[in-house]
């Protein structure tokens, strides 16, 4: 096995005057060094299935050529017999950089003389705006106009297992094997096929036990691209596992900013609202970022009833790592809306829970077409709010808060409600296949594309299959994450897996049950119509005494006199609805120590509606993981750069993930009463926790500090930030 190590730019922006690999190549054990000049020209076709080939193609060189565009930009690949040697040699690659002014700040980028990419004026990667004229009257007549500005720092997915892959090119038959840490094995194969011009069936992608993804591992990154290209240069398996520093500085960076305006009438009912949104595309976004930015605007009305809305969004190139998906990529809409609602409540002098009651949709208001034209269905926004308020004993908390304040202790409560489009029917995500095979012994295997990165797809598949065939879970096994064995499916993304896998298994199991009935009927000498398949056997309803076990049916199917066709079925499911809407209300209570600026979370309640739960442990596990990522985003995690674009948090000592001492016990309330239009009524739940949490925490902290007239407008709410606001004693 050969090992690869990247040479990365130490500067955020510089011209590459020369790259000298001679010394590195001379190191014993080094097999070769590749630069952009060696491999960039080998790209055949490079686009992402998620967005298709027709969106504008933003620059994406495998290795930097001519110019480096963020600190961490890969410039060369060193391949050696072992990792230690590869790293030694990487240090000997001499790159002559001529520094250029870096574009780092999101707002300044728009007016900067420096362009991250030649030909992209104003550093605008993508933009979209809806008309605003129809809002003028509502704002002119409003009893209250509330304006807020919110900045969300860069924070990153940070799967505990970094990115990495092993590639092996077999020149004899022109085939490629890839062991990838990916959320989407089949899409990785399609991508590799296009990139290399190698037929899809000559590529096998295997993804087993991926150690967390959270969006970062949906699409192939530049490092993956380079390894795929490098495979054909080295006649041996080639391995690249990035280290944590690389993962932090080079994998992704979501960073957003927004200005919200809300017009409310005298009763505190929102009449109209707008958001002007900026999103950091970084230097090399993957994929085209307008999709998630437009979602910020379109979902911004969230669970609110108002009918007059508009948005604008700009994705801005900067000399920072490229934007990639992170759990709930449009989460900023919830942060911006919910923080603005609390600001409005304080400005008007209405309790924030009461303000929401006056504005939120209840299940009886649905379907509802929001101010941006999205039709919301099958949800319980107001109902989850009431459930969460009751669980947290809102009124009691307000009394405790008053008492605590009298003693100089500062408690706060924050609400955040959101609606979330799960299982979106994008062409690439709307279809999923399954094969279910009853083996000759009567045990069952279900084959699915997979892409589990810790989201329990294996458990879910086994459970759903056992239910669909009415057999014991103990006899079901699942095979996933290998393109050579499993039907096509597009992996873990967009909170789609539970519902799509359920659909694929339902369609397939229906065919297989018929087949079981046919074989059993044949064996029993009756018509298939009278056969019942239940409890792990097949029998004539009127005469269960002659029941055949599944093993006996399988024996007939494989070895009986008319054995043809065995006992397996394959089918695909196509989702019909544009989205399966899920929703939740989060409520968080905190105590803020005004001497140290430290925030302690006291309680965290989630009332959610993901439809009927396939497995409550899995649902709650997904919510918990997401909530804690959101808490990290609100309080701790900050991927920061200095003015020159040097990253300041490249270890877990500087980039603070929540630990056991930072997190509360999370309390869950489930509202299963509004099933979605998909199979089983199941709706997605993978991302919501991370969407709701930042706003709930931010609102709780702002509520705690409201006696000081502090309005919090930037995350994370670190002790230093809070102390600064307290010292300023006002808006900041």
């Amino acid at each position, binding site marked *: 096995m050969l090992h690869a190590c990247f040479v990365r730019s130490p500067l955020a922006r510089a011209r590459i005057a020369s790259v000298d690999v001679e010394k590195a190549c001379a190191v014993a054990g080094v097999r070769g060094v590749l630069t952009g000049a060696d491999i960039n020209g080998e790209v055949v076709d490079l686009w992402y299935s998620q967005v298709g080939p027709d969106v504008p193609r933003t620059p994406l060189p495998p290795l930097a050529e001519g110019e480096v565009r963020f600190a961490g930009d890969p410039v060369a690949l060193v391949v050696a017999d072992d*990792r*230690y040697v590869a790293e030694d040699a990487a240090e000997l690659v001499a790159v002559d950089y001529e520094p250029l002014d870096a574009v780092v700040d999101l707002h300044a980028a728009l007016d900067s003389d420096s362009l991250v990419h030649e030909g992209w004026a104003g550093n605008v990667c993508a933009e979209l705006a809806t008309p605003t004229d129809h809002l003028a009257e509502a704002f002119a007549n409003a009893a209250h106009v509330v304006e807020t500005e919110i900045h969300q720092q860069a924070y990153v997915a*940070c*799967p*505990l*297992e*970094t990115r990495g892959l092993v590639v092996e090119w077999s020149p004899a038959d022109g085939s490629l094997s890839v062991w990838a840490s990916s959320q989407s094995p089949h899409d990785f194969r399609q991508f590799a096929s296009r990139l290399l011009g190698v037929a899809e069936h000559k590529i096998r992608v295997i993804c087993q*036990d*991926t*150690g*967390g993804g*959270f969006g970062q591992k949906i699409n192939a990154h530049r490092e993956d691209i380079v390894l795929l290209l490098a495979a054909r240069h080295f006649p041996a398996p080639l391995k690249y596992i990035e*280290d*944590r520093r690389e993962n932090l500085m080079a994998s992704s960076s979501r960073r957003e900013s927004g200005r919200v305006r809300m017009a409310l009438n005298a009763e505190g009912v929102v009449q109209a609202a707008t958001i002007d949104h900026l999103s950091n595309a970084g230097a090399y976004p993957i994929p085209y970022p307008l999709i998630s930015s437009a979602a910020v605007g379109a979902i911004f009305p969230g669970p609110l009833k108002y009918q007059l809305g508009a948005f604008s969004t700009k994705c801005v190139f900067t000399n920072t790592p490229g934007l990639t998906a992170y759990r709930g990529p449009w989460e900023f809409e919830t942060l911006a809306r919910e923080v603005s609602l609390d600001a409005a409540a304080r400005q008007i002098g209405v309790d924030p829970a009461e303000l929401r009651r006056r504005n939120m949709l209840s299940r009886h208001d649905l379907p509802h077409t929001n101010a941006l034209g999205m039709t919301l269905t099958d949800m319980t926004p107001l109902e989850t709010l009431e459930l969460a308020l009751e669980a947290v004993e809102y009124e009691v908390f307000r009394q405790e808060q008053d008492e605590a304040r009298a003693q100089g202790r500062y408690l706060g409560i924050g609400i955040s409600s959101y609606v979330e489009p799960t299982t979106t029917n994008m062409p690439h995500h709307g279809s999923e296949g399954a094969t279910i095979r009853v083996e000759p012994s009567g045990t069952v295997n279900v084959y699915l594309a997979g892409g589990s*990165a*810790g*989201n*329990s797809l294996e458990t879910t598949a086994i459970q759903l299959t056992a239910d669909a065939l009415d057999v014991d879970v103990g006899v079901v096994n699942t095979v996933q994450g290998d393109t050579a064995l499993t039907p096509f499916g597009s992996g873990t993304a967009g909170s789609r897996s539970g519902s799509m896998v359920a659909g694929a298994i339902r369609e397939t199991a229906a065919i297989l049950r018929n087949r079981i009935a046919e074989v059993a009927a044949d064996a029993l000498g009756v018509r298939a119509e009278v056969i019942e398949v239940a409890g792990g056997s097949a029998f004539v309803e009127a005469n269960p005494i002659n029941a055949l076990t599944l093993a006996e049916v399988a024996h007939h199917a494989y070895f009986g006199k008319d054995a043809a066709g065995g006992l397996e079925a394959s089918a695909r499911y196509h989702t019909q609805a544009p989205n399966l809407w899920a929703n939740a209300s989060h409520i968080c209570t905190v105590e803020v120590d005004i001497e140290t600026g430290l925030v302690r979370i006291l309680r965290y309640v989630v009332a959610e509606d993901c439809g009927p739960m396939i497995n409550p*442990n*899995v649902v*709650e*596990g997904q919510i*918990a*993981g*997401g*909530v*804690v*990522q959101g808490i990290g985003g609100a309080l701790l995690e900050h991927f920061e750069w200095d003015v020159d674009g040097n990253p300041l948090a490249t*270890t*877990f*000592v500087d980039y603070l*993930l*929540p*630990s*056991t*001492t930072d*997190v509360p*016990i*999370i309390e869950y309330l489930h509202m299963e009463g509004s099933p979605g239009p998909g199979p089983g009524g199941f709706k997605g739940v993978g991302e919501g*926790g991370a969407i709701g949490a930042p706003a709930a925490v931010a609102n709780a902290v702002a509520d705690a500090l409201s006696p000081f007239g502090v309005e919090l407008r930037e995350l994370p709410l670190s002790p230093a930030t809070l102390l600064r606001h307290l010292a300023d004693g006002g808006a900041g």
Partner: protein
Amino acid sequence: MSEHEISVVVNGARRSVRVPSRLSLADLLRDKLGLTGTHLGCEHGACGACSVLVNGEVVRACLMFAVQVDGDEVTTIEGIGSEDGVLTPVQAAFRDCHGLQCGFCTPGFVVTVTALLERNPAPDDGEIRTALSGNLCRCTGYQGIIEAVRSLRSGVEHAD
């Protein structure tokens, strides 16, 4: 690069290996001895995924050199689990309480919790959280992990 002959008992078996002086203990275990249950989440000593026992004490295998364990006893997750696949009580509790999702952090947590419970069979909630605060998990929000440890403490009723 100087090399050294070291002798170390790993999961009960004595191993003699020649190692470069700069080889980390984690890389010795994973790459030279094939014990890939020890995971590397940061290689900065901050995440705890690489936790192993050296002479019964929890250490971070990414922060030690292989030469430092010459003459010592090392226990990895493979040595804590049984060869026949029967889960230890700690492993079983993690499974029962949904204490793992992707499982990448899990070996480090199991090693840490095993050592904690040997030292303190009935840790209170605060002690559990403190003892685990050096192990990072990005998937579970720690809910199932903490619940797993609570379910294991002896002689103590569950209390919130």
